[in-house]
């Protein structure tokens, strides 16, 4: 038995599957693209690629925040509320005061700062008071959204400060088509950069390994000397920061600041992270898997539109995908615990 496991691990099939089922996700994406492409050849085109890129770029940043939290054994449902609070808040603030109106950089820094503040709220309740993460973030989600609508504003704002306005039409690629142009915003670059940074953080820093350790067994992490409290504070503050940036990306991209947006869309991101191999029980998950999960969900939503499936079915489909992802995890855990074939393999 002990010799069999490493032998299996060396098999190419096993390696292709990836430690978080990345291989399976790639396969899903390819198969889906082929199927949709055969029923509608306009699918295989640059505009599709750009659409999926645009749809993914903010979600992938939200997903990085959720990934870190899920790996640590928690769950967050407040990130969208933080995102829209930061994004919409910055537009209101800058329009109102004129501070930093000429620079998109200032806008993003402000959004990041707001994200950090709101993340601290989660961190305080979760790390210091040791409250359950789902309940805390459900609460903060409602509080943040309530404060946004009551005190910051409830109107849709079409006019942006100069700097953000310019950024919103700064495209990396534009595809001209018969039905109009499709574009991909330059913001895809910082989104990719954030993914790389989170990946490095999780894999090559003691802090990042501490997040996995806490997700594996918090008590053991404490006994091993990991600063559990500090790490948890970091996790929720950093997630707030990422959510703030992602919210700003969203507001910039849609060119219309709507405080009612984002909240309610948590499912897409959480589903993407779980399908990407992160364990809801904590301790497992990767950036590559999460990115593939986000792309898969964007692809499915895009294809459903293309295939003429009513929009109302999109949520149901994402929900179904979430269940499939969770079941796949549960099944793989069960299969690893399978009984050893005693008759064949018992020690001599």
């Amino acid at each position, binding site marked *: 038995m002990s010799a069999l496991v490493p032998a299996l691990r060396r098999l190419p099939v096993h390696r292709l599957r990836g430690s978080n089922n990345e291989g399976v996700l790639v396969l899903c994406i390819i198969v889906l693209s082929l199927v949709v492409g055969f029923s509608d050849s306009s699918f295989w085109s640059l505009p599709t690629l750009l659409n999926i890129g645009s749809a993914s770029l903010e979600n992938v940043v939200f997903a990085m925040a959720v990934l870190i939290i899920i790996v640590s054994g928690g769950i967050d449902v407040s990130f969208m509320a933080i995102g829209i609070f930061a994004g919409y808040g910055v537009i209101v603030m800058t329009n109102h005061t004129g501070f930093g109106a000429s620079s998109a950089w200032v806008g993003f820094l402000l959004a990041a700062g707001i994200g950090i503040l709101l993340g601290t709220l989660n961190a305080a309740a979760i790390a210091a008071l040791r409250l359950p993460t789902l309940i805390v973030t459900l609460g903060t989600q409602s509080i943040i959204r309530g404060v946004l609508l009551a005190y910051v504003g409830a109107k849709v704002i079409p006019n942006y400060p100069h700097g953000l306005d310019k950024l919103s039409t700064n495209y990396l690629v534009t595809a001209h088509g018969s039905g109009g142009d499709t574009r991909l915003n330059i913001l895809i670059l910082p989104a990719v950069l954030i993914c790389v940074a989170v990946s490095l953080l999780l894999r090559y820093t003691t802090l990042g390994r501490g997040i996995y350790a806490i997700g594996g067994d918090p008590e053991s992490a404490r006994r*091993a*000397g990991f600063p559990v409290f500090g790490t948890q504070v970091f996790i929720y503050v950093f997630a707030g920061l990422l959510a703030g940036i992602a919210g700003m990306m969203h507001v910039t991209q849609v060119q219309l600041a709507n405080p009612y947006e984002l909240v309610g869309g948590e499912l897409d991101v959480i589903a993407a992270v779980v399908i990407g191999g992160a364990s809801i029980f904590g301790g497992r998950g990767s950036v590559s898997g999460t990115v593939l999960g986000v792309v898969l969900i964007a692809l499915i939503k895009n294809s459903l539109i293309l295939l003429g499936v009513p929009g109302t079915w999109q949520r149901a489909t994402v929900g179904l995908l979430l269940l499939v992802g969770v079941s796949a995890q549960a099944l793989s855990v069960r299969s690893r615990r399978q*009984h050893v074939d*005693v008759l064949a393999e*018992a020690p001599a």
Partner: protein
Amino acid sequence: MTEEQPLLVAGSLSKSFGGVAALDNVTLEVRPGEVHCLVGENGSGKSTLIKVISGVETPDSGTITMDGQAFARLTPRQAISLGIEVIYQDFSLFPNLSVAENIAVATYVAGGQRTVRPRDLRRSAAEVVARIGVHLDLDARVEELTVADRQLTAICRALARDARVIFMDEPTTALTWREVQALFRVVQSLKESGVALVFVSHKLDEVLRVSDRITVLRNGAVTVTGDVSQFDRPAIVKAMTGMVLTDTSPADSVRSDHAPLLEVEHLGLRGLFEDVSFAVRPGEVLGVTGLLGSGRTEIAEALFGVAPADHGSVRVDGKQVRLHSVRDAIAAGIGYVPGDRLTQGVFLDQAISVNVIAGSLDRLVGRLNLLRRGKAQRMVDDAASELRIRMSSASAPVRSLSGGNQQRVVLAKWLARDPRVLILNSPTVGVDVGSKSEILDMLRAKGREGMAIVVISDDVPELVAVCHRVLVVRRGRISDELAGERLNEQAILKELAA
């Protein structure tokens, strides 16, 4: 090495919780390269002593001296940096991380390093593993490992942090006989490199075999300490309990004139065991032993319908029964006390009374399926007095009880149903000596009442003390049956090792 300078001295440590003395002037001396065994019943203060020495608890008075340097108290970090390591029963590993990371990552944390290079991690883990000469798959996730390999991983982690004294809490409990031998070889190589080991163990035979010196605790105080050569089994038991306990032989209760109560014929489950046949008469206690992974637990689980057999037949009291589910087994009059008490046997956070009646609710309900409280209360009272469960109140959670008393609650739950056949898997694991002998007495008594009992165990003295016959399972088949003259400790050990 008798007069060597001690490495660690816990001097006159006292600690009380809420006025109750958990440690009373306890002195423990550990010399370099020795195996020191700390024995005592549950609640004797062993855990508190370890916690104080490793910095988890603060002593009220006394000193901890490491290498001649005295401390009034230690923090967990200080203890680790001095080389004091504790391997708890749960090992405190990260199931989701690789073996290499589990071994090496704590040194990174302790060293205050900010970045981790997987290659360095693996290399330093490989060095430690090679040092004690064991084989571990460094890339496997810990959750995929056997208990024995997890323990080796925990030992390697301690060594990676330059451990000089390693405390091991019940290190052999979950190991098979063969794995215990492997552990002892590792212990031998650690001793030679000057590392001291302190074992906390209930298994007296192993204590006597592997230790150099023994310290016995009772009620928070040291009753005796000295070289292992000065002790034999009864002497240790007496020091632990204050009484003289003898392992008696099985009760003369087999009703050989009766037809067997349980008859198992050619039972098999693909890949796990096959062609298992035996019969148990009323009053008979049948032992089943084998290495962990031999199929002994699987046979028991098949008889209780947990993982039903796929061929063969089972008769209870002469009647053929279908055992496709736990319900079937209970209906047939079979009770099963599982091996993993904590996860399968009890509801830890529920009251003792709730646990006792949990298996017999159908017998306690009146009209409208409502629970009859008076009847339930009587059942709990009867069980508590028959099994001598020591508890403050029947509404206290089972978690608050000692291991021995928890096991009595599990037994009470099944005995409340009055099963015809009772199957027990490792009934005395993690149970102190006093409770153990009472549990065995209880089994003998149930035998006398005419119950058919099957005990699955690898505790050899226990098998000899309570069983009329012992079946040895190897590779999913019954390889031998020991009875009468042939039923003794040496014979069983030889069969297990073969």
